[in-house]
């Protein structure tokens, strides 16, 4: 089910580029795919030093970069639409396809981590 929705998202985002012959919205899809990456890199960081009493802010860096990538992926089609490089249907398809891809990735990773905890 999740993989079908993921394929639908990729279909929408490729259609938004291919129907109008303008491949700039594909950058937004790349940003959407990269969005979970900082959280997965920085989120599980734990220091080995038991005596260290300061709070680690490494996870905060991951959250910050995640939000930056998310807003960039959303804002790129809107900027292109504002200038008139792409039309509104292309921007809509690009954003909705990217959101579908991102949500299915999140659902999949949450399922995987839950199974790991149970195991």
């Amino acid at each position, binding site marked *: 089910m999740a993989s079908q929705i993921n394929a639908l998202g990729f279909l929408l985002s490729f259609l938004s580029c291919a129907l109008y012959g303008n491949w700039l919205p594909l950058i937004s899809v790349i940003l959407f795919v990269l969005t979970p990456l900082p959280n997965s890199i920085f989120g599980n960081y734990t220091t080995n030093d038991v005596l260290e009493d300061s709070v680690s802010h490494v996870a905060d860096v991951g959250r*910050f970069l995640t*939000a930056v990538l998310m*807003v960039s992926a959303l*804002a790129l089609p809107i*900027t292109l639409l*504002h200038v008139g*490089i792409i039309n509104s249907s292309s921007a809509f398809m690009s954003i909705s396809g990217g959101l579908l891809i991102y949500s299915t990735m999140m659902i999949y990773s949450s399922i995987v981590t839950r199974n790991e905890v149970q195991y």
Partner: protein
Amino acid sequence: MNPSVFIWNCRLPGLSAATREKLSTYATYFSGALVCWWFFIDGLVVAANTPDFGVSIGIEDWIPGILATFGMLIINSIDLSSLSDDNGFEYGASRLANRVKLMLFIGIALIAGGVAGSFAILVIKYINGGEAANKVIYTGLTVVMQTCLVMTSSFILWLSNRTDQNTEFNFVLQ
């Protein structure tokens, strides 16, 4: 007792430690969402795509945003626990705390300078620039928008870090 700078040192009531931690997480996401330069980029793209644009875009349009972002990096990279680092075998504040205060001052001055510079660019280039520049005032407003958002985001991040520190303090008390 936690030493406080101000006389009104009341805590936020009714928030458990877990709620505070969650709030701090969301505040970090929110500040990351605000810090993006997309208003500025939108203004630049509009400027590049408008025929006979009334203002020439140069390096000076980039400088306020770069200064504000740099100041944000500085004041949010500081370990806040070193600000209250008064190991009492010396009179006055410790030297580490003095250096931390100097870096904080530099960071906040960079942010304030960025905001003031963006307003200066708006007034000099776009408002006082003549008829042709008045028509494209949107690009000038995006520079102001960008630096104000960076300032807001850095203050949100700062406040969320403070909350984080309080959480740790409460946790130690229990």
